[in-house]
């Protein structure tokens, strides 16, 4: 009997000793520093009759010992297609000078004028280093570089976070400083100057040059973000953040114009838009993720306001539905609504005094956007993951246009924008 009791004790102690040997020693192996993890994706974005973009992205992450990690990201963007130039449609064909001043493009009667010279290639690279400072504090430092044919953006950022309450609560503060340079082909237009149309007149080039001021300008943006992450229970985590962003410099879109229309609604002139040279944005963001036994619900809401008088609401819902065999389906719904900027004008009226600022960019008007999407992903052997995402985006502009003069009352001044987004993702 004594032997049996003693034997039992051996088994339990031996199991504990073995677990200790294997459990702890797994962290002592030479393979402690992880390999690079790669994530690659190709995103295809296509607006109906407008811009299409193809965007390959590759990210690489390497974790080092002591929870240090390095993230690198490289993005290529190829944009082609047409973008609304801001002018109103008319019952006659309309001719516009290309932003470069070299040549023109034409919009047919009753069609929203689109600038089809829009073609660009963007390359962006970012890197981020994260590391804990001690048990409670973590720091992160990063830099971004992005370049286009006529645009260069450089930024640096840093953040500091502190864990409280057995790591159930995290407070963080982040700062980012960005410096952008724009140098469009054909130089920057003088705000509110009239577009000169080349009708074969002798002095076109001089007239065009008179609408230009400087070959480049810059913009500086300072962002601050304060965040709180709270673990609610073992299945739920909630995040709250407040952000404030201050931009100053050249905030105008040099490719956008406004139609100056007569009382019949027909254009008598096109003027280059002009925006204020500073913008202050603030935002509040709330996100909650909940893990059910298998599925994951991700819900977020953002409230945004700025001193251009735009306020917006964004509601985003994702539900990851785990199917068997390492597969999942993730439906996505997003609702976005914004009010218009105080200087937004769909058009200017001939004879009226010019406002201080004006833009007909539909992205500054009142609009509603809805995204419906579905993502399907599955894990392959060796931790590799393949996923694809298909989304449909519908944007409706609905600024009040009750007093559109003449022919404009019959025109579609706020056409819907529809887009299809297709993304393939491969993580290895």
């Amino acid at each position, binding site marked *: 009997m004594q032997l049996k009791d003693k034997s039992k004790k051996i088994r339990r102690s031996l199991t504990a000793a073995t677990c200790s*040997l294997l459990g702890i020693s797994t962290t002592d192996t*030479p393979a402690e520093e992880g390999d690079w993890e790669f994530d690659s994706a190709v995103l295809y974005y296509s607006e109906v009759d407008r811009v299409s973009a193809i965007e390959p992205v590759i990210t690489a992450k390497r974790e080092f010992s002591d929870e240090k990690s390095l993230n690198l990201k490289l993005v290529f963007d190829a944009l082609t297609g047409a973008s609304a130039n801001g002018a109103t449609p008319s019952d006659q064909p309309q001719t516009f000078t290309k932003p470069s001043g070299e040549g023109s493009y034409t919009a047919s009667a009753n069609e929203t004028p689109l600038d089809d010279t829009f073609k660009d290639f963007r390359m962006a690279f970012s890197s981020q280093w994260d590391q804990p400072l001690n048990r409670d504090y973590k720091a992160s430092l990063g830099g971004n570089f992005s370049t286009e044919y006529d645009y260069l953006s450089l930024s640096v950022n840093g953040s500091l976070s502190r864990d409280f309450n057995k790591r159930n609560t995290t407070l963080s503060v982040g700062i980012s400083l960005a410096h952008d340079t724009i140098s469009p082909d054909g130089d920057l237009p003088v705000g509110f100057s009239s577009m000169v149309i080349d009708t074969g007149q002798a002095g076109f080039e001089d007239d065009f040059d008179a609408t230009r001021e400087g070959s480049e300008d810059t913009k500086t943006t300072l962002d601050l973000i304060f965040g709180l992450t709270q673990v609610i229970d073992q299945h739920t985590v909630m995040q709250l953040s407040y952000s404030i962003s201050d931009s100053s410099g050249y905030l105008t879109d040099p490719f956008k114009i406004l139609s100056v229309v007569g009382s019949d609604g027909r254009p008598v002139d096109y003027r280059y838009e002009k925006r204020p040279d500073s913008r202050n944005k603030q935002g509040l963001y709330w996100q909650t993720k909940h893990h059910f036994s298998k599925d994951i619900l991700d819900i977020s809401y953002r409230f945004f306001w700025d001193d251009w008088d735009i306020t917006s609401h964004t509601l985003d819902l994702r539900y990851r539905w785990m199917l068997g065999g390492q597969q999942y389906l993730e439906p996505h719904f997003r609702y976005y609504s914004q009010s218009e900027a105080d200087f937004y004008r769909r058009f200017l009226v001939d004879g009226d005094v010019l406002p201080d600022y004006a833009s007909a960019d539909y992205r500054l008007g009142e609009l509603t956007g809805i995204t419906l999407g579905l993502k399907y992903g599955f894990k392959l*052997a060796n931790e590799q993951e393949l996923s694809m995402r298909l989304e449909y985006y519908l944007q409706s502009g609905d600024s009040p246009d009750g007093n559109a003069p003449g022919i404009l009352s019959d025109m579609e001044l706020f056409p819907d924008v529809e887009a299809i987004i297709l993304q393939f993702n491969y993580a290895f």
Partner: protein
Amino acid sequence: MTRLTRLEEADGYWQGRFQAMASPCEIFMEVDEASSANRLLQIAADEAWRIEKKFSRYKKDNLVYRINNSSGAPAKVDDETAHLLDFAQQCWELSDGLFDITSGVLRRVWRFDGGSHIPDEAAVKALLPYVGWQHVNWSRPFFTLPQGMEIDFGGIGKEYAVDRTLLCLQEVTDAGLLVNFGGDIHAGRRKKDAGAWSIGIENPNQPDSANGILKIHQGALATSGDARRFLLRDGKRYGHVMNPKTGWPIENAPRSVTVAADTCTEAGVLATLALLHGEDAETFLKGQAVQYWLND
């Protein structure tokens, strides 16, 4: 040492082979692509070879060699070695001194080569002062071994390597895996509906024929006792498991014991402890609430 690996496709899985720790090593991998299988096989072989190199008493450039030639001076050891020394100490305590990694010194007089040479009692007795964990001083991270003594992780090294190799592979894949180093086996869970792994158990009287087929879903098997390592003298068979207290082989022990447990290391220690209990091997095993197979 040959540093070769071989990969073959079988029905629904890949089988990789290499040689390590004087044993044929096999890895069964339920992956689709040869490239994945080959990557896993390299990880497995690298881990097995790493452990062999680090803990083999036959190498002259490792920590075990430095400890065995430290002439009584303290040696500072790394974390992994420290864990193994802790484990060896716990096994020694749990077995009341029967499981002892210092008993390898007795090999100087005992050669289990299937022959009939039995050393004389005086020679055995002369070695006894150099055997016994009670003589060492283990105070992490310093290990002090008296001059003339030796440590040998051979009793747990292969089983430890099996577990470590499976753990290494499981860090990079969810695929069904089975690791078999010379009959010491640890199997991870197979794919759904794939059923159990089938493993043949060797009959010690006919070493090259399978004695039975064992079905295992997940878990480990280890065998102690060696059909090939014994001495035969005057009709009496001396198995190679030594009693460190007497310096003589354990008498009336089963030829081999196979134990199933959650890890190969635990199964291996239980099997060895069973042999150290001699004719009470089965009584000991019954007390452990484990599955076991004896070959008398």
